[in-house]
Structure formats: C-alpha cells, structure tokens
C-alpha cells in the first residue's frame, strides 16, 4: 500500500515537472536579456542551444499558444547568426492563422528566415492566394510585401492575376505595394512585362504621390529588363514626367514632402532617372526636357544632402542623354567640377563628382582638366574611396600634354599608398607610359621607379613587359643599366660591414633587385666598355652583387617571412635572386675584358656558392665555374652570347588581353572573363602554342611557381644557359625541352576550368596539356585564390587504378586574400579510353575565424576534362 502510494506520488511529481516545462516558456524579452548578459560566445551558444531545443520540442508537440513568441525568438537567433531552419514551417503555420497578430509575425518570419530558394516557400502559395483576396487592407498588404520581397518565379505565376487586381485597385496603399511587387515580377518573370506596361502608364497621371513614385520604379525596371519598350512608351512617359518635375519646382507643393527645402527629393530623383532611361535616343524627347533640367541645375540649393542628391542625379541624366545641346552638357560638367567638387566641402559630394566626371572625361576632357588641381589633391585624401575614384580619373585625364606631371603625381602617390592599390597603380602607370611617353628614356625611367616603389606587388606581366622594352630598344640599354644600377645595386656597392648598413636596406626588394641584376648582366657590358668618363666599374657591380648575395642568404635563413615573390616562398625567391646574381657574374666575366684580379673576384664568389646548401644555387655555381674555365671558352662564348631582342609589341598585346585577370580585379568579371577565354581558347590554342618565342623571358624563371622543386629548377637553368644556343640550332624544340619552365607563359593560353571549392576558395585549372589519343598525359596547373587568409593549405588528388597522378609541391601552404597558391598536377592514363577523372580533397585552416574549429575540408570529383566526354 505504502509502496503504491509512493509510486503514485513519484509519477505525479514527474508529470507535474513535465507540465511545468511546457507551460513555462520564456518571453522574447527574457531571452534577449539573457542573451545580452552572456559574456562569451560559448555562453551565448549554450543559451541558444538550450532555447532552440525547447522551442523545437514545443513545435513538435504542435503547441499553438507559444508559437508566435517562439518564432520571434528564432528571428532573434537568426539575426545573431544561429541556425533556425527548423522554424520555417512554423512561420507558414502562423501565416495561415486567422489572427492578425499571428499573421504579422508569420509574414515577418517569411521575409527574414526564408528566401526565394527555399522549398518550403511553395507551401505558402495557398495562404498568399487567400490573403491577397482579403478585404482587410493590412492583411492584403502583408501578402503583397511577401510577394515583393521573397517570391520565386513559380510563386509569381500562381498569384499574378491577384496582383493585377490590386494594380487596378483604388486604395493607394495596396496599389503602391502591388506596383513594387511588380518590380520584382519584372526581374523574375520578364514574360509578364507586356502585361505590366499599361498599369505603369496609368500611374503617371495619378494624384497620389506614392503611387507615382512606385509607378516610376516600375517604369525604370521595365526599361532595364525589356529595353524594346522604351521606344513605344517614350511619348507616354516623358511628358507627364516633365510636367510633374516642373510642378515640383514650384514652391506650392505639399510641405510634408520637402526635405531641407527641397520638394520631395525622392520623387525628383526617380523622375530624373526615368527621363534618363526613356529620354536618350530621341531629339524630340530631349528637347522637351532640356528646360526643366537647366532649371534644376541652376536653381537647386546645394547646401543639403537632399539638394546635392537631386543635382547629382540631374547631372547624370544630362550626361546620359547624348542628344541634349552641348551648352547644357557643359553646364553639367561645370556643376560637377565647380559646385560638387570644389565648393561643397562635403566628402560625399566629392566622391560622387569624381565618379561622375569619369563618365564624361572622354567627351569633355579639356573642361575636366580645369579641375585637375582639385583632382590631384584628392589623390592624397585619407579616404580610400575618394583616392580610388581620383586615381581612375587621373588615369583617364592623361594625354601627351600632361603625362609628365600626372605620372609624377602617381609616382608620389605610390610612395605612400596601401599595398592593395599598388598593382593597379602600377598597371595604370605602365599603360600611360606606353601610350604617351615623350621618349624612351623617360619611359624606362618611369617604369624603373614604379618597379622600385611597388617591387613584388608589381604584376608579373608588367615586369616582363618592362624587361622586353629594354631588350627591344638597343639604344636605351645603356641608359636602362644606369638607372637600374642606381636604384637597385648602387646602395649596396659600398657596404663594408653589415652593422653599418642603413636599416632600410636590410630588406631587399627582390623584384627590383632581380630586374636590375638581370639588366646589368645582360646589357651592363655596353656601359662598362664604352669609353665615356662615367663608365661603370665592374668592381662596383661585383661588390654590390656580393652584398646582395650575402643579404639574401641572411634574410632567407633568418626567417624573415615578409616578402613573398610572385607566388613563391621567401626561401625560393631569395634562391632565385642568388641564381640571377650568379648568372650575372658569369655573363660579366665572359663579355667584359676584366683585369685579372676582378676575374679572380668573380671566380671566388662562384667558388663560395659551390658549397651552397641550395641545390639549384650550388649547381649553377658549379656549372658556371666550369664554363668559365679556359678549356670551354669557345663553347661558353656561344652559351653566354647576348639574347636576341624580345618582341615587345606582341608581348604587350598579350598583356593587354590578359590584364583583366589581375588579382584585384572584380571577381565576377574575372569569372566571366575566364569563361570567355574558355570559349576562345578552344581555337586559339593550336595556333598559339608553337609560336612561343624562342627566347627566354625573365618572366619564365622569375615567376617559377614551383621554386622549391629541384627538377624544375634544373630545367630553368638549362633554359637560361642554353637558350641562345637553342636559338641557333633548334628553334622548334624549345618548347618541348622546358615544359615546366614555360608554365606561366603558357598558362595564359591554356584552357581554364574552375573547381568547386566552396565560398572561401576559388580554384582555376589551367590545362597546360590536354589529354589526346596520342599522348595520354595531362598537365594541370591549379591556381587557388581566396578572399580570406588561410594556413595549412593541403591539396590531395586520388585517381582510379588505370590512371596515374604526379603531384608537385604547392608554391605555398598559406594564402593571403588576393594571393595565389599554384600547384602542378600531372595525370596520365594507361587506358585512355576510360573516363578521365580524379577525386580531390582540399583542407585548410581559416586564420582569422572566430569559429572553434577553423579547419575546413572540401572534397569532390572532377570529370570535366577539356576535349573529352565526361
């Protein structure tokens, strides 16, 4: 008896506890308060986890009492970045509820938790259909808002007749919502545009201001999505817009709509945008709006942001309608340069004016030049947004009359601009110099200084272009050696002890150093042997090379991991530098008749590096040492003969084609660019491959993406040593002999594919060699770029049994935003008929993540080999 009673007691107690658990549900306010009192993210996470579990339980039980409250909590969690997918269905349940209070929260959740891609959205169709027919305006309004913000194309097709009803309705509240919902319909289902046109034109004569405003938004969207409507609609759209604008300018308008003295700036701006969209292309239309545009330009008060917004929009409209008279267009430019750029001390006005001037600079260059001083002043603004705009404008303003002044300003700008901008500035300078350089010496001067200021951030293609420039023009070679010697080598020529070295010289500038050394090695002899008083002394060169060699050794072994040259590691880049320096010494030895003691100096240096622990450096030192021996003199004279000139113009053309794939280019543009090249390259490839210039460009060994792989470097060495030899004996074989040395040059012509790597990483596959029936191997260069910085990067590849894979080391294991990791993979197949494929796994750590587990692993299969059926 007692036992039973105890049992019963226990059972009731349990039931009571359960009941309490479900009955008591924290309010949103309590949850927000608790969340805010959390001190660490771990605490926050624990709270959200606990709350979510309870909410999920309640949802499962089909609870209705707390549903609204719980969905609201989920909205809060969602905003803080926590997963809330399980609440989507509950939102729909709330939408269906007859209570307005529930509906409001349900539709809010629909707009926040869901987007058009969610499957759940199809379930809401019935509810929307019902609510759109509701005779309570607020309920219909909720449904229209949902259509305008999240509807998918399918959903739109289901509810379109109901939207049409509201478009014809009398209630301005619902009509404006329906008009904006139609804006979304235009974007998602352009087939309906012809049905929407009439509803749009009907709004233009309306008295209700919000209906006109939203009708104009629809007009703009129609013009954007189906430009073929512009022509027939012009006569219906332009006159009412012009009239309304005139009305707005007269002072007797509704005071509730004016903002700091400007009558309804929102409507004015929309009207101007519509004029610009529908007015261009017709003389008649442009004539009818010229008056009102002049009025706005001259009468609008520019002291407030609203006024500036209207003036700015008016200027844009004038600029976009090419048919407007020249005087009006000049007035627009004057307003931009005068009132917005010079007078308004507001940085926002400056920004928009710089941006807008860029769009007219082609047409009104002389007029824009008047504001050159202010534009140049903007180059030193602390705000990067303004500097970027000014930079583009300066570049566009350049011509042969002001090239010297503007390039001086840009060089000055380079000295203290952030690294992020440097590549694009270098690109601009190179292009300006290319087009307008007064003479070749000046050109070399500007490029050397650009190189010295950007160093490793200079795009590779520009570096090789610069080298090609010097190589192509014999007359400038002596001058170039002088300039580059002064910039790159002279600072190191008189160093006797490292302790007394200027600290700024400790860090080498690898790209500048490398180009200088190469140029001195290749052309320095001309300067040394000419009989002028100022001829270069070989001893000075050898001294500075000696210092640079020492410094590069120190830097690479003291772990100064700051500079990464052209995708390689510090170590490999300083190795490259040493190799170039050794080659330079060998060339000088062969080409200049040096006194015995100087020759000894060179041989001594070579001897030192014969024991270098870098295989490649050691090998070079040994080989050069042998080559310089008397026994091989006849042979080595030929080996060390000057390189034939590089074809500058073809390289420049190539550079111009490829310049858009720069690391800081717009990612979407880059993608489409690579897609285009994917299409083009199918035909291009065959004809371009054999035309690879027989000379070795500096680029080829500088940009070596696999610096640490010794086999590859041996190839480089061969190519460097024997290139001129090859040139005499065997032109065509050059390409086959140095397959890897050619990577970077070839990759521009290779077929490009992309690999699916999730949101952080982008991988481009450059197919250097495509599998074909004759040759069952395939070389693929993987270029990984990322928007975040990551470490411990690892890329693995697995293939089926009938294939073989050879994975070369990656150029780096960490990646900065804008940087690149390059890795070469060679695939071959024993039975080429079977499908080509490989599995890949990419793993890395996010270095700046707040998540507890920053490591990410991605896997996938790649079958999309070019030229093969998948």
């Amino acid at each position, binding site marked *: 008896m007692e036992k039973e009673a105890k049992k019963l007691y226990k059972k009731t107690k349990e039931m009571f506890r359960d009941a309490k658990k479900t009955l008591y549900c924290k*309010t949103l306010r309590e949850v927000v308060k608790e969340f805010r009192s959390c001190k660490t993210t771990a605490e926050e996470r624990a709270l959200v986890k606990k709350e979510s579990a309870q909410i999920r339980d309640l949802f499962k039980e089909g609870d209705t009492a707390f549903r609204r409250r719980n969905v*609201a909590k989920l909205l809060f969690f969602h905003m803080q970045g926590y997963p809330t997918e399980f609440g989507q269905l509950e939102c729909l349940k709330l939408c269906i509820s007859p209570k*307005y209070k529930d509906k409001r929260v349900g539709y809010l959740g629909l707009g926040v938790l869901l987007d058009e891609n969610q499957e759940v959205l199809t379930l809401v169709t019935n509810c929307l259909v019902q609510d759109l027919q509701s005779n309570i305006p607020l309920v219909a309004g909720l449904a229209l808002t949902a259509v305008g913000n999240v509807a998918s194309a399918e959903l739109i097709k289901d509810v379109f007749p109901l939207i049409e009803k509201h478009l014809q309705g009398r209630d301005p509240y619902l009509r404006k919502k329906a008009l*904006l*919902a139609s804006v979304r319909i235009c974007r998602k289902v352009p087939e309906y545009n012809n049905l929407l046109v009439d509803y749009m034109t009907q709004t233009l004569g309306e008295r209700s201001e919000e209906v006109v405003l939203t009708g104009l938004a629809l007009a703009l969207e129609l013009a954007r999505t189906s430009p073929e409507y512009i022509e027939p609609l012009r006569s219906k759209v332009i006159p009412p817009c012009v009239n309304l604008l005139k009305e707005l300018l007269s002072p007797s308008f509704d005071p509730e709509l004016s903002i700091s003295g400007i009558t309804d700036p929102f*409507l004015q*701006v929309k009207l101007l945008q519509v004029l610009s969209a529908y007015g261009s292309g017709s003389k008649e239309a442009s004539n009818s709006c010229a008056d009102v545009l002049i009025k706005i330009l001259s009468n609008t008060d520019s002291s407030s942001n609203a006024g500036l917004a209207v003036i700015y929009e008016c200027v844009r409209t004038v600029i976009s309608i090419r048919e407007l008279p020249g005087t009006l267009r000049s007035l627009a430019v004057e307003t931009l340069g005068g009132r917005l750029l010079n007078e308004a001390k507001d940085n926002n006005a*400056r920004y928009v004016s710089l941006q807008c001037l860029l769009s007219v600079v082609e047409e009104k260059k002389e007029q824009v030049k008047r504001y050159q001083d202010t534009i140049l002043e903007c180059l030193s603004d*602390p705000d990067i947004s303004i500097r970027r705009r000014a930079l583009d404008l300066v570049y566009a303003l350049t011509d042969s009359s002001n090239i010297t002044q503007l390039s001086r300003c840009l060089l000055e700008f380079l000295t203290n601009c952030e690294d992020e901008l440097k590549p694009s500035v270098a690109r601009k300078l190179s292009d300006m110099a290319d087009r307008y350089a007064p003479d070749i010496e000046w050109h070399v001067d500007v490029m050397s200084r650009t190189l010295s200021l950007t160093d490793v951030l200079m795009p590779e293609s520009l570096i090789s272009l610069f080298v090609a420039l010097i190589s192509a023009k014999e007359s400038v070679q002596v001058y170039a050696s002088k300039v580059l010697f002064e910039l790159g080598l002279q600072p190191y020529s008189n160093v006797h002890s490292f302790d007394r070295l200027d600290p700024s010289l400790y860090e080498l500038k690898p790209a500048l150093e490398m180009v200088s050394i190469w140029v001195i090695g290749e052309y320095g002899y001309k300067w040394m042997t000419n009989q002028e008083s100022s001829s270069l002394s070989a001893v000075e060169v050898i001294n500075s090379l000696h210092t640079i060699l020492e410094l590069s050794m120190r830097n690479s072994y003291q772990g100064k991991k700051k500079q990464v040259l052209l995708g390689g590691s510090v170590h490999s880049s300083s190795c490259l530098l040493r190799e170039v320096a050794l080659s330079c010494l060998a060339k000088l030895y062969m080409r200049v008749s040096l006194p015995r003691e100087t020759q000894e100096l060179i041989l001594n240096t070579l001897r030192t590096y014969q024991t270098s622990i870098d295989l490649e450096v050691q090998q070079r030192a040994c080989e050069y040492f042998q080559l310089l021996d008397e026994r091989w003199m006849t042979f080595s004279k030929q080996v060390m003969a000057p390189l034939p000139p590089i074809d500058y113009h073809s390289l420049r053309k190539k550079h111009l084609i490829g310049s858009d794939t720069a690391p800081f280019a*717009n990612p979407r543009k880059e993608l489409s660019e690579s897609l285009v090249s994917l299409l083009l390259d199918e035909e291009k490839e065959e004809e371009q491959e054999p035309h690879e210039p027989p000379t070795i460009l500096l680029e080829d060994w500088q940009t070596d993406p696999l610096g640490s792989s010794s086999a590859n470097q041996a190839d480089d060495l061969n190519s460097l040593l024997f290139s001129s030899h090859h040139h005499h004996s065997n032109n065509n074989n050059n390409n086959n002999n140095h397959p890897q040395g050619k990577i970077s040059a070839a990759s521009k012509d290779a077929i490009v594919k992309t690999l699916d790597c999730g949101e952080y990483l982008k991988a481009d596959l450059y197919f250097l060699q495509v599998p074909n029936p004759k040759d069952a191997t395939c070389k693929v260069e993987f270029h990984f770029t990322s928007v975040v910085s990551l470490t411990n990067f690892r890329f693995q590849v697995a293939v089926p049994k009938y294939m073989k894979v050879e994975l070369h080391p990656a150029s780096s294991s960490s990646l900065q935003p804008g940087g690149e990791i390059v890795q070469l993979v060679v695939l071959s197949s024993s039975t080429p008929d079977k499908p080509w494929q490989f599995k890949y796994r990419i793993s890395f750590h996010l270095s700046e993540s707040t998540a507890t587990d920053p490591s990410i692993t991605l896997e996938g299969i790649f079958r999309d080999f070019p030229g093969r059926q998948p």
Partner: protein
Amino acid sequence: MFHFLLLISRQGKVRLAKWLEPYSQKERTKISQELASLLTARSNKMCNFIEWRDLKVVYKRYASLFFVAGVDPTDNELITLEIIHHYVECLDKYFGNVCELDLIFNFSKAYYILDEILLAGELEESKRGNVLRTIQASDSMAEKHPEDPKHSVRGY
C-alpha cells in the same frame, strides 16, 4: 535597388538585417562581419560610401549604430543616404527618441516599419505620416484580437 540593409552596432553586433537577395545564412554572417570591420575602421570625416565586392555600400552612423545599405553601383548614393535617414526618422517618431536598446528589444517593430518603407529593394513611401499611420493601424489591429488570457503576457 537595395540588396540588403543592415543595422550593425559599433561592436559588430547585428541589430537588424533585411536581405532582399538570396544570401545563405553563412554568407549573411560573413558579410555582416566583414562590413562591420570595414566600417568601424573608417573615420567620421570620410565619405559614406565604399566600393565593396560588386556592390556599393552606403552607410551612415547614428549614435552607436551603423545603418548599412548595399545598393547597385549605379544607384544614386546620395539619395540612398536620404532613404536611410528617412527610415531613421520614422523609427525616431515611432519610438520617440529611438535608441539602440529600443531596437534590440523591439526589433520586430523595426522590421514592420522597414517593410512600409522598402519593398522589393525600392522606396515605397516617402511620407513619414503615412508610414506611422499604417504601423499604428497595424498595432491596434493586432491588439484587437486578444488571445487566450492565460498566455497574454506582455508582448510576445
């Protein structure tokens, strides 16, 4: 058009987020974090625009809150600022001297107001009076349907 509108505190906390283009939850979090760090680094004197990915970000700081709008690069940046200000004024009128705490505890109200100002990424209503009237009507309609008295605890 607006692609998104975010309210981010100076500490980088999101106070309100309206996404008008389909961004995944992961992207949403990432974008908010990225923009928060970009914006807090900018000084007051700088202009209110940054070029970000392929959008233009127009932002304005009101007290401790950043109002951040991602718009098309061809949009009029200055009028976007004016729209943001319009929204802030509506919030201010509704809450009466709005502060960050109001928005934290009543974020749903802030969403309702925004839904009356922006639809499909376009400006919907430029009269402050109309916006407030609608919201008040909506509020009183929600109150008109009292639910089971047992559960009608303050707010939600």
